[in-house]
């Protein structure tokens, strides 16, 4: 299958290793990956911060780049939730019927990375090995917007050597929330402190998630406190094999 990768702006800029891992997993499963270099951002930051008019050209650009793509895979549940929850409304706001039609046609072809593996490909064992103690933060959008349920867990359970440790209150927000983490830095930090406490209680070596946004937030505190607990996007764990660490 030909898979168009939408890497997302922050993975492109800050977490290229996640993108490389997605490519490695998909190619290992025998699929062809294409990267459309015209891609930029889904518009979520602007939309969620209230810059609705400014978000519209960004999402319009996304739609134009991917209009003819068969299957689009995105290693970020929050960007996918932006598309599924808000693109139609944005098109209505722009009073653009053709944009709306494009969005309607495009949405069913967009998948979050783990959702693509399990729901579309029907694969749970991607041949990965990662001999570490891992805990999973179930990010808000992955649960409450995409309803991924136990999909990430099913994938992690098939990873050789991986010991999955249960994270208490894993459904509670880590406090990132995009610009919320800056606009309400104190409250965000208090939420993060609770989350980090739960992560440390698991005694995991690595905290994973399907979103690097939450992980960047968690890493910020884990590193500031010199806990040396690592964070890694789930794609990096799934890309690891006995011979090759992601």
């Amino acid at each position, binding site marked *: 299958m030909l898979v168009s990768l939408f*890497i997302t702006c922050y993975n492109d800029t800050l977490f290229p290793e996640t993108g490389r891992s997605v490519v490695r997993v998909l190619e290992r*499963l025998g699929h*062809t990956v294409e990267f459309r*270099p015209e891609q930029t951002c889904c518009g979520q930051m602007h939309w969620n911060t*209230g810059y609705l008019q400014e978000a519209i050209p960004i999402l319009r650009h996304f739609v134009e780049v991917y209009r003819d793509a068969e299957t689009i895979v995105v290693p970020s549940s929050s960007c996918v939730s932006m598309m599924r929850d808000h693109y139609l409304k944005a098109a209505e706001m722009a009073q653009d019927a053709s944009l709306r039609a494009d969005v309607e046609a495009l949405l069913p072809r967009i998948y979050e990375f783990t959702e693509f593996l399990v729901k579309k490909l029907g694969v749970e064992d991607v041949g990965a090995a990662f001999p570490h103690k891992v805990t999973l933060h179930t990010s808000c959008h992955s649960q409450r917007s995409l309803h991924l349920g136990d999909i990430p867990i099913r994938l992690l359970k098939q990873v050789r050597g991986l010991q999955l440790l249960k994270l208490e209150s894993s459904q*509670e927000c880590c406090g990132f929330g995009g610009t919320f983490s*800056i606009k*309400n830095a104190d409250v965000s930090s*208090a939420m993060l402190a609770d989350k980090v406490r739960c992560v440390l209680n698991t005694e995991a070596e690595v905290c994973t998630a399907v979103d690097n946004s939450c992980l960047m937030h968690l890493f910020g*505190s884990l590193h500031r406190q010199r806990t040396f607990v690592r964070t890694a996007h789930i794609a990096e764990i799934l890309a690891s094999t006995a011979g090759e660490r992601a």
Partner: protein
Amino acid sequence: MKPTPSSHWQDRDFPAAAREVLEDSQTRSNVRHATNVIQAKRDAVTGELPDWEPLRDAGAAIRAHSLAHLDYYLVQFEQACTRAGGQVHWARDAAEANQIILGLIQRHHVDEVLKIKTMTSEEVGLNPYLEANGIRAHETDLAELIVQLGKDKPSHFVVPALHKNRMQVREIFQREMHLPELGERPEDLAAAARSYLREKFFRLKVAVSGANFLIAENGAVCIVESEGNGRMCLTLPDVLISLVGIEKVLPRFRDLEVFLQTLPRSATGERMNPYNSIWTGVQQGDGPQEFHVVLLDNRRSPILGDAESRQTLQCIRCGACLNACPVYHQTGGHAYESVYAGPIGAILTPQLHSMEEGRSLPYASSLCGACYEVCPVKINIPEVLIHLRGKVVEEDQKTLSGRFGMWNLGMQTAAFLFASASRLSLAQSLGRVAQKLVVNKEGMIEHLPLLLSGWTQTRDLRPLPEQSFREWWAERTLQTDAARTDSGAGGQATGRGSSHGE
């Protein structure tokens, strides 16, 4: 003329007010404990219902229908209530509501009245208004009594004294009820409140209440409660005045079938409220012989006119969104500086103030969606929060300080960069150079300037890596194509570059 604003709460913005609460470890611990307990009970009693989701759908549909035909149902309610012997008054705003209620009380020459917990009266600032006019209102709900005696403000509209623990309540009662020997057991506190209140129930002739629901078809009014203080106020006095927001009307009596299931389960984690009172007008020789309903608009009409945020008015004030909210867990209700706290308060309050106050409230959420998930009438609170953020930004951009403020400049710059991939790549390259100013010896960013300093106050940041993903991809495509050419496979580089599985 602008309607007079509601009671005075909005002094500081949310981040500043929240900071004060975050430093108050006692309040935080009380809030955390209480919300955890209520939420666990709520989860248990909603989870046991096989038709919980259909009940939410039905609740949302009934409330949306009522709002879509509010003009019809309000007039129907007025006619039915009047036929049954009630008197209906219409109040455009807080000032009108207060004047109407004061006038009704003064007719009976009393200077004390009973109150049943009503957030609507908090919204219009009824108690201070009556006080200024020589009338003392006695709160009879236990939590409201604690708040009133403690000269405090409610922090949760179902559990107003949620931020106080037992020992703090005991101190307030000892001081205000003159009971220095009062014990600390729950039954000691309840007994003290009971004897304090009972005297008032028997003596006072006028009561003021709110309402959970109005029933259009028969003019009935419904109140659910846990303590029986409501039942006392609804039956003992000669005169009952109910102040109710216009959005609280339901078309039919049978609609209560849905809400008397979803409201108690969502609000307090009870399968049913201990007291469900429904009364219709006046019954001779039974209960209050004079009954008034004051229907309050107070800027609800403009919300009704906004298709994006109309769903705000579907709210049945269960408070489940407060208990589920990770922001509320940290801050409790006072940080919202509003009668209505939590996620629903964050959308309702600024709208009740025509977006002139409470403008920081739509941002008091990480948009995690926990509120929407528990809402028994399916208000998509995150969606409305974003809609209101849009209004805040739009208003800000009309001012010079807003247009040239850091947020707008930052967002406009980002929008410019995201408009094309070449701009984004250029920004990535520039970022790698510029970050040398902030990357420390360990190769980490511990201090960021200006807006971004909020991030580094508690969080480190990994610098931009040497190579972006798009650069890695371009390099890989070049290598692959070169290898193909070398091996004579005749592979050709595609503009987009795609690579096959190994």
